[in-house]
C-alpha cells in the first residue's frame, strides 16, 4: 500500500473532515484488506485514539466499538454469554489469533465482504449500526443498500434477548475463505442467514416466513431455503454445490436450535 500521510485523529470532527477532504482519504480499520488491495491512499485516518475498543453491556443491547478486534470479540465474556457464545465461536474460526488481533469489527462490517463470517453471524440477530455524523441503520439495511455509506462506522449494537443459535462455516482448509456460511437464530422468531454465496450474507426471507408462521418441517424449510437462495460460482466452488451445502446445514441448524 502507498499512502502520503497517516493521521491518528483526536476527534470525530477531525476524522470526518479528513474523510470528506478527498476520495483518496481512507478510514483505517485493521488495515488488512487495504494491504491486500494494493491501495493508493492519500491520507490514512486512524481512529485508535477515539475510545472505540470497548464491548459494553447496556441492558437491552450489547454495544461494540468499531475498533474492537476480532480476537477481543471472541474472548469477551459479554459476547460469550450471548446466544450460547455463537458470535465468539464464529469469529474463532477466522485465521489465527495473530490475524484476529489485527482485524477489527468495524472493518469487517463496513467492507461488506462476501466471505465474512462475522457479518453472517451478526445478521442472525437484530444489529444496529451507528455512524458518524448521527445516522443509525440496521445491518440488514446497510448490506442491502448499494455502495458504502459515506459516514464513519462507530458502533454495532446487538439487541439482547434469549436466543438459541447455530453457526457453520464450510471451507476447504481451515485457513481458507468459507465456500458457504450459515447462521440461524431462534428467539420469538427465526432468522436464517446464508453468506459466502460468494456474495455477502443475506437473510432467507421466505424460509423465515414459513418458520415464523408455525412451519415445523425442517426438511421443507431447507427446500424453501435452497429455492430462494441466490448463489454464484467462484474459483473455489460452483453455486450448485453451495445450494447442496445450504440445504444440509439449514436443516441441521434448525434441528440444533430446537434441541
Amino acid at each position, binding site marked *: 500500500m502507498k499512502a502520503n500521510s497517516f493521521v491518528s485523529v483526536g476527534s470525530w470532527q477531525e476524522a470526518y473532515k479528513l474523510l470528506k477532504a478527498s476520495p483518496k482519504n481512507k478510514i483505517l480499520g485493521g488495515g488488512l484488506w487495504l494491504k491486500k488491495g494494493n491501495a493508493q491512499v492519500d491520507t490514512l485516518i486512524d481512529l485508535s485514539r477515539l475510545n472505540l475498543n470497548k464491548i459494553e453491556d447496556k441492558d437491552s443491547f450489547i454495544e461494540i466499538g468499531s475498533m474492537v478486534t476480532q480476537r477481543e470479540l471472541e474472548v469477551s465474556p459479554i459476547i460469550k454469554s450471548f446466544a450460547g457464545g455463537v458470535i465468539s465461536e464464529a469469529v474463532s474460526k477466522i485465521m489465527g489469533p495473530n*490475524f484476529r488481533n489485527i482485524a477489527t469489527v468495524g472493518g469487517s462490517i463496513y467492507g461488506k465482504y462476501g466471505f465474512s463470517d462475522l457479518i453472517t453471524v451478526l445478521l442472525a440477530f437484530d444489529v444496529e449500526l451507528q455512524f458518524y455524523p448521527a445516522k443509525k441503520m440496521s445491518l440488514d439495511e446497510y448490506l442491502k443498500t448499494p455502495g458504502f455509506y459515506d459516514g464513519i462506522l462507530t458502533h454495532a449494537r446487538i439487541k439482547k434477548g434469549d436466543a438459541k443459535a447455530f453457526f457453520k462455516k464450510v471451507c476447504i482448509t481451515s485457513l481458507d475463505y468459507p465456500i458457504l456460511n450459515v447462521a440461524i437464530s431462534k428467539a420469538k422468531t427465526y432468522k436464517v442467514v446464508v453468506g459466502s454465496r460468494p456474495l455477502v450474507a443475506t437473510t432467507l426471507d421466505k424460509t423465515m416466513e414459513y418458520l415464523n408462521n408455525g412451519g415445523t418441517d425442517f426438511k421443507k424449510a431447507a427446500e424453501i431455503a435452497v429455492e430462494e437462495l441466490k448463489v454464484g460460482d467462484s474459483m473455489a466452488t460452483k453455486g450448485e454445490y453451495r445450494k447442496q451445502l445450504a440445504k444440509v446445514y439449514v436443516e441441521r441448524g434448525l434441528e440444533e436450535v430446537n434441541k
Partner: protein
Amino acid sequence: MLVKFVLNGVNKEVNVKPGDYLLDTLRSIGVKSVKKGCDGSSCGACTVLVDDKPVLSCSVLTARVNGKHVDTVETIQEEAAKLSEYFSREGADQCGFCNAAFALMVHALKKENPNPSDEEISNYLVGNLCRCTGYKSQQKAVQKYLRGE
C-alpha cells in the same frame, strides 16, 4: 514520519513512510529473526508481539505501533531455547524458518492460557504454517513443553 516504540526493551526511533508495514521496518533495522513468508497475512512467519499480543507484522502499519512495545523472539531467548529442545526431540525442527514466530505464539498462548487442551493448542497455532513438517511433531513438542514433560 517518525515512529517511536520500545523494541525488545530498548527505545527506538525510526523514520518510516506512512504506508510502511512493521515487518519491513523491523527487517530494515536489522531484526532478521522476523521472517517474510507470504507477506499476505496468511503464513504467520512474521509474528511479533505488540503490547504482548501476537500480530502479523506484515499487516500492521508501523505508524500504528507508535508508543507501543514490540517484542520479537530475541526477548524470549531462554524460553525459545527450551522450546527448541522439545522441537528437536520430536523431530519438529527442520528448516527453522517458522520457528521464531512459533516460539512467540507458544509464549503468548502460555501467558493467556497456561493449561490449554490439545484442541486449544491447535486453534491457537493454526495461523502459523510450517512447510517441512505435518504439524504432528510440533503439536507433540508444544504439548510436552507446556506440560513440562
